[in-house]
């Protein structure tokens, strides 16, 4: 989200001693601010930090770890001011609580590449406040002024050989008032933040002990497999469970909010028995929906004007006067999220309480949905966030939550629901398809003087956060488009919402990837029309945008722009998203029509970094995510059903297909930008531009594999 919601900035810090000693330090946002954003989310004070008498320090992380490294980066932020080594700290997932709301998203959610930006000051302050209280407790104990003491490595020292650990101090520190004003270290003094600390989750992921949602085990737990509607949006009419019920291990068959669930002792038994169900469905409104209709619907809608997202000068008039006008239509398909861990949820329903174990990005909605299914108050539902085997925005949805509660409530035992890959791929919320009409005007000197981009696509925000649309054009449909940064006097960007019949969802980088593909491909078209080198053309139009210009220069330099070896061709893209600036040079060859992607060189300026190694990982991973989508990504529909069922027909890049990737991180003192998502958007346009350089053929639709320009 670009703008933070207008929450009160007053913070209330509460500290309370644990039973048995220890310090809990809390940070609670005012109750009414949370209520305004979320309804009845509850506002109890919660803790960031537990310090046990034996000096074990546990950090509660409120953001979901889906591989993007938040368990490490959040800990680093806290550890910097707290004066502890991140590697010495235990991390545990925070429960649902008002204090854990993400101010940039308006709730306890992980997404939008916001975690570091949201926590940047908040967690350092919390660490500084805790440290101050611990030092004061030592000062009181020694009858010395606090200013004569210092904290280091989880203990307080008087500089004359005396030491008290945080564990020894915690109980008395917790009784002290929380300091309102703390001075944070300048960046020049950082020992933890900005350093490539080893991730805290590497070891447990490498030895197989990390518990993902799909791995949850509870005493007495049963497994469930759910038969869902074959068509998107179909409704259950009737089912015959007589054969399924008799199969080994089966406890119960019931209708749930996802479909017909078979509950059995073991997953395989549930899966097999599900095959013995006889189910009839009302195929619903989408019964005749196919991909041709989706495209036709968007194309027909695109003739109408949308809501204006950007207006400088008068693009229409400028186009009418331009010496040379280029017009093009660009199209992008629906995409799946394809988290490698399929959707799953475990619920343990008891009278008056429900424990939910889920790989969720959306603790606040998960709690609400589970409570509704359980017939309980939200405060009676405890959400345990596990590791996520990929998130990508799929786990912001809560469509996989309620059924596990319904099952558990019915059988009176914990139940784990696991979706098959086929269930997952055919019951996703898809990345919207886009139909864009774009026009650019050049004057007699080949200067770009007019730019008009008209975006037509279904809206995720209209389903998930509709109140946003009352005030503004869907901000999640116009990313990397409304912020058009090139120095062009007449710019018009508008967005027309057109639904296509299926639920669309936020998919890693949201509208950055579709819009950047169009913007950076069409800029390339204009460069060629102007007779200019694509890098020079862009560079000349970024004279007033130093951060864009710098990453463009770095990518070109490190990617050897213009100096590709014989037989290799290059394409370039540049973008700002989430407060980060990126540029990419893609280098390819086309051998007898067959494409090979050799190298991706990416320059990144994301402002101040918490962990440069994690930033590099997210760049590499994001580029490969974008590469899969660019080359093959496409979800097609026939008779209202998704045609791709597994990874044979929905291809992802394999390890041996990965190109060489070079990442250059710009040192910066600017405010942090988000890095979980932006790299995804860079690949398709750079690749398309490189393919054009190699073949003289322009790619205006994705995936590349289907455009009959190159074979992959």
């Amino acid at each position, binding site marked *: 989200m670009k703008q933070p919601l207008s929450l009160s900035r007053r913070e209330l810090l509460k500290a309370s001693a644990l039973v048995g000693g220890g310090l809990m330090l809390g940070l609670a946002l005012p109750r009414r601010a949370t209520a305004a954003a979320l309804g009845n989310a509850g506002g109890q004070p919660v803790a960031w930090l537990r310090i046990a008498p034996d000096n074990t320090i546990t950090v509660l992380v409120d953001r979901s770890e*889906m*591989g993007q490294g938040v368990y490490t980066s959040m800990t680093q932020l806290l550890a910097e001011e707290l004066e502890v080594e991140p590697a010495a700290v235990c991390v545990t997932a925070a429960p649902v609580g008002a204090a854990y709301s993400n101010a940039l998203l308006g709730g306890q959610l992980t997404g939008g590449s916001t975690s570091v930006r949201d926590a940047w000051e908040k967690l350092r302050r919390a660490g500084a406040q805790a440290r101050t209280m611990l030092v004061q407790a030592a000062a009181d104990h020694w009858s010395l002024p606090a200013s004569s003491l210092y904290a280091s490595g989880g203990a307080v020292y008087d500089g004359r050989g005396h030491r008290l650990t945080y564990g020894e101090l915690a109980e008395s520190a917790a009784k002290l008032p929380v300091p309102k004003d703390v001075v944070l270290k300048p960046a020049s003094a950082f020992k933890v933040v900005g350093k490539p600390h*080893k*991730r805290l*989750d*590497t*070891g447990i*992921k*490498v*030895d*197989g*002990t*990390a*518990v*993902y949602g*799909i*791995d949850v*085990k509870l005493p007495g737990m049963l*497994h469930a497999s759910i038969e869902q509607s074959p068509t998107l949006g179909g409704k259950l009419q009737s089912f015959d469970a007589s054969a399924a019920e008799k199969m*080994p291990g089966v406890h119960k068959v019931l209708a749930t909010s996802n479909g017909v669930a078979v509950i059995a002792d*073991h*997953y*395989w038994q549930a899966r097999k028995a599900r095959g013995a169900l006889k189910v009839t469905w009302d195929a619903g409104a989408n019964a005749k929906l196919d991909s041709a209709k989706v495209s036709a619907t968007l194309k027909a809608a695109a003739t109408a004007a949308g809501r204006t997202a950007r207006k400088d000068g008068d693009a229409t008039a400028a186009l009418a006067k331009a010496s040379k006008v280029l017009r093009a239509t660009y199209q992008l398909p629906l995409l799946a999220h394809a*988290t*490698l*861990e*399929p959707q799953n949820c475990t619920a343990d329903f008891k009278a008056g309480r429900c424990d939910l174990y889920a790989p969720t990005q959306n603790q606040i909605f998960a709690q609400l949905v589970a409570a509704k299914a359980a017939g309980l108050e939200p405060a009676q539902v405890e959400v345990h966030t596990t*590791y*996520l*085997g*990929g998130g*990508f925005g799929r786990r912001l949805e809560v469509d996989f939550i309620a059924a596990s509660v319904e099952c558990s409530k019915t059988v009176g035992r914990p139940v784990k629901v*696991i979706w*098959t*890959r*086929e269930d997952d791929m055919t019951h996703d919320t898809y990345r919207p398809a886009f139909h864009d009409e774009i026009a650019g005007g050049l004057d007699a000197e080949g200067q770009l003087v007019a730019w008009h981009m008209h975006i037509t696509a279904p809206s995720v925000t209209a389903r998930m956060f509709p109140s946003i649309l009352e005030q503004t054009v869907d901000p999640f449909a116009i990313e990397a488009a409304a912020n058009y940064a090139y120095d062009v006097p007449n710019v018009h960007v508008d967005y027309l919402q057109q639904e296509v019949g299926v639920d669309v969802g936020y998919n890693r980088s949201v509208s950055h990837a579709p819009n950047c593909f169009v913007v950076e491909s069409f800029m390339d078209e204009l460069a060629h029309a102007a007779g200019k080198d694509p890098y020079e053309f862009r560079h000349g139009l970024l004279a007033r945008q130093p951060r864009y210009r710098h990453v463009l220069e770095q990518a070109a330099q490190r990617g050897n722009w213009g100096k590709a070896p014989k037989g290799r061709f290059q394409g370039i893209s540049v973008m700002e998203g989430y407060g980060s600036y990126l540029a990419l040079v893609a280098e390819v060859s086309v051998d007898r029509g067959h494409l090979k992607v050799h190298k991706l060189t990416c320059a990144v300026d994301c402002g101040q970094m918490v962990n440069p*190694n994690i930033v590099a*990982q*997210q760049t*590499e*991973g994001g*580029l*490969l*995510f974008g*590469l*899969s989508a660019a080359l093959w990504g496409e979800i097609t529909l026939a008779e209202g059903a998704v045609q791709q069922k*597994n*990874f*044979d027909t929905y291809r*992802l*890049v*394999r*390890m*041996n*297909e*990965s190109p*060489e*990737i070079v990442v250059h991180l710009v040192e910066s003192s600017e405010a942090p930008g988000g890095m979980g998502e932006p790299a995804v958007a860079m690949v398709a346009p750079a690749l398309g531009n490189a393919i054009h350089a190699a073949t003289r053929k322009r790619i205006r639709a994705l995936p590349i594999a289907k455009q009959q320009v190159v074979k992959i």
Partner: protein
Amino acid sequence: MLQLIVNGQSVDTDATPDTPLLWVLRDHLGMTGTKFGCGAALCGACTVHLDGEPVRSCQLPLEAVAGRKVTTIEGVSADRSHPVQQAWMELDVPNVATVSRGRSCPLPHCSHATLPPRTRTSMSPCPATSAAAVRIRASAAPSTAPLNS
């Protein structure tokens, strides 16, 4: 009751003979280090070693492995000391790692951080694990095995 040898230990299971080894390991034996990603032997998340060779356990029925030796991620080392585990930790790229099993179960004689031929066709989960492969490949001695094996 069928018997198999898992990580050097003989275990009995009452799972039906058609139960895929993946679910015998995860559900019946409670060993969740081996993951479920696709159920169709396409993604590699379920890779284990059978008599020393990497196999995709999601499509391997129990009856096919009865009496044979299975090595899972839990058995590759007791303390993350296997060279490929060490390489992953050195390069610090677990990222999603729900499907890194295909990469962290190399042939026992693999003594440096290259990925043995069969695991190279494993799919990238969050593509960051492909990035891990990029890093591991870049850091290791060049292999003469063809990449597309």
